[in-house]
């Protein structure tokens, strides 16, 4: 049903991670017999590739399925259908969706996750040594002193003092806790790190520190990131390519600069213009998007975005667009992609703001 966005990335390399037609439908059950009366289409036919060493950003509003997509990739939830192909160091290309538990556990050495909430994701009864050392223990490093050495190394790597290792998480601030979460994710030397909103719970001044840390680590450890976020400014800063999701589908995908400067999907364009810019001289010429995000349990007909889209025509109500390659590594799911001109960041505002002094 969906055209494979074949030419999105340089064809010479094999993708590090490839997601093909991924679907995750959660059943809605009702009544005493728990009959299934419908499905929440959290992820609905999503395909993309991530190349080695790059940062792929996944953006969208709440409920668009970005977190579910990332969880399906790690098999934290089992997808309803579709394929996730991971280029493993030890065994070549593996189909993550088919793996049995023991093999999955082996594979998880190579793929790890950083969570959003630094307060909820660390067990308050465990010390840093136990928290960061747990993945090591699970993967067979049974000697406690070896673990302590590795934990010390990891804490140093993320900018925390190794002496803190015997402390509990409550003694740390939000930013420091997020560093602990990063240390835990890196414990097994993973190659793919899925970061699910890693900075959205942090204060502005601390957010910059964590973003810098993630970028430094990527360089020194040669990591590949799948960066899930709703904050477009952060995504622009950190990722090389971006996929924009809306109600379970990717509506637009492409290199960050192109996509931000010259969006091809009306939703991307509206999303960009909704971001408040920290410069009072640029009070916006924004596109006011009407209405609310569609309900994934009962999506509208045709293009899911048509009730809110100012460019919608009759055709949009009937036909569903598919993600099509439009050249330059970009793909868009819009029926009117060749007919409409959309404002991006390039032309709504003539110059970049000079933030700061």
């Amino acid at each position, binding site marked *: 049903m969906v055209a494979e966005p074949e030419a999105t990335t340089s064809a010479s390399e094999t993708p590090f991670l490839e997601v093909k037609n991924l679907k995750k439908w959660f059943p809605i059950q009702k009544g005493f017999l728990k009959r299934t009366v419908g499905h929440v289409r959290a992820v609905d036919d999503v395909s993309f590739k991530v190349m080695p060493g790059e940062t792929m950003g996944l953006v969208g*509003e*709440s409920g668009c399925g970005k977190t579910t997509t990332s969880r399906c990739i790690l098999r934290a939830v089992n997808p309803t259908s579709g394929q996730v192909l991971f280029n493993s160091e030890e065994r070549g290309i593996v189909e993550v969706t088919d793996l049995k538990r023991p093999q999955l556990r082996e594979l998880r050495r190579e793929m790890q996750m950083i969570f959003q909430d630094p307060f909820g994701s660390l067990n308050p009864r465990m010390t840093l040594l136990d928290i960061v050392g747990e993945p090591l223990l699970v993967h067979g490093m049974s000697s406690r002193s070896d673990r302590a050495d590795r934990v010390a190394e990891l804490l140093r790597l993320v900018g925390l003092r190794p002496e803190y290792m015997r402390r509990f998480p409550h003694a740390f*601030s*939000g*930013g*420091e806790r997020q560093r602990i979460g990063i240390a835990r994710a890196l414990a097994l030397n993973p190659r793919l790190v899925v970061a699910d909103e890693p900075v959205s719970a942090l*204060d*502005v*001044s*601390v*957010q*910059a*520190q964590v*973003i*810098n840390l993630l*970028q430094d680590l990527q360089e020194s450890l040669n990591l590949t990131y799948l960066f899930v976020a*709703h904050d*477009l*400014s*952060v995504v*622009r*800063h*950190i990722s090389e390519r971006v996929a924009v999701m809306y109600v379970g589908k990717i509506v637009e995908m492409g290199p*960050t*600069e192109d996509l*931000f400067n010259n969006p091809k999907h009306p939703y991307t364009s*509206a*999303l*960009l*213009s*909704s*971001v*408040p*810019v*920290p*410069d*009072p*001289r*640029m*009070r*916006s010429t*924004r596109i*006011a*998007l*009407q209405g*609310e*995000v569609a309900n994934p349990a009962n999506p509208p007909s045709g293009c899911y975005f048509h009730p809110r889209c100012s460019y919608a025509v009759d055709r949009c109500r009937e036909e569903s667009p598919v993600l099509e390659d439009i050249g330059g590594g970009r793909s868009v799911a819009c029926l009117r992609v060749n007919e409409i001109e959309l404002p991006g*960041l390039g032309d709504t*505002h003539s110059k*970049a*703001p*000079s*933030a*700061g*002094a």
Partner: protein
Amino acid sequence: MTENGVQPLLSVQGLKTYFPTDEGLVRAVDGLSFDVFEGKTLGIVGESGCGKSTVGRSILGIIDKPGHVEAGSIVWRQNPSDEKSEAIDLAKQVPTGKLMRSIRGNFISLIFQEPMTSFSPVHTIGNQLTEAIRLHRDVSKKESYDSAEELLALVGIPNPRQRLSEYSFQLSGGLRQRAMIAMALSCDPKLLIADEPTTALDVTTQAQILDLLRDLQEKNGMAIILITHNLGVIAEMADDVVVMYLGREAESGPVDDLFHNPQHPYTQGLLRSIPSIYSKGEEKLPSIEGTIPHPFNRPSGCTFRPRCPSFMEGTCDQHVPTFQNIDGTSQGVSCFLHHPPQEVTTNGS
């Protein structure tokens, strides 16, 4: 202080709100002064724990125990254009007294941060809206329902009549925040305190709510105190800005000056550290070193000193900077870079 002879609607001077706890004294707000004028928006910006929410709550006298206003005045003028109009010091009123109760909701209202938890889940939206209306106005039940419907229509909720009989959990986040705004506006307040009104919302919904607040302000000329951590929202909405750090005013001034010519090292650092949607992103983000200190261990002298790139030994750690205007501008800072310490220092922290 006056602006072109117009008196402020609300004038806060030297406000201190303290929370004496078993572990120690938390100085949530520690000497803050600002003015709010009719029809203008004052932005209060700061990171978590800087006391910005406590400011809003202090004005309304709804600080959670054991917190209390320790010192300072909160002067409210019912009718600022009239020279002789009565000025009431809200800080001196009994929080549960008749006067405060008549001011709350009637003249000053508050929009809370979480639209999820600020409505009662067991009463309908209509029920809660009419309660507020009937508390402050002498109207019949039917009339109150009619004006509630008008209010919901005013804030852009489709099918207002039907929504009145729904519960808060049946509404989406954006609609719930709109209903919250409708409730705050039910008695035509002169001052609206919006405490992180869009933090829990998506960007497209956030843009809608900000537009709505701006339209409403244009229509009924109310003043808004916008409390947020998001500098983008401040730049978009505010006329004047107060930047808070650990309960104190780091810098304040008109929005344009503050964003384009920030004077305090904290404001400068804060503005540089946010990734811009316009930046290319290859280079590293300049960040502010360290983290916000715990309220029980405030550094001596200037509270920003341990994180400050322009820390001056012997000055910043010995003296507490006071908030002063910078000559020739309408900006003010508390920083020794601009105002060297006087011989005698008062109030050690």
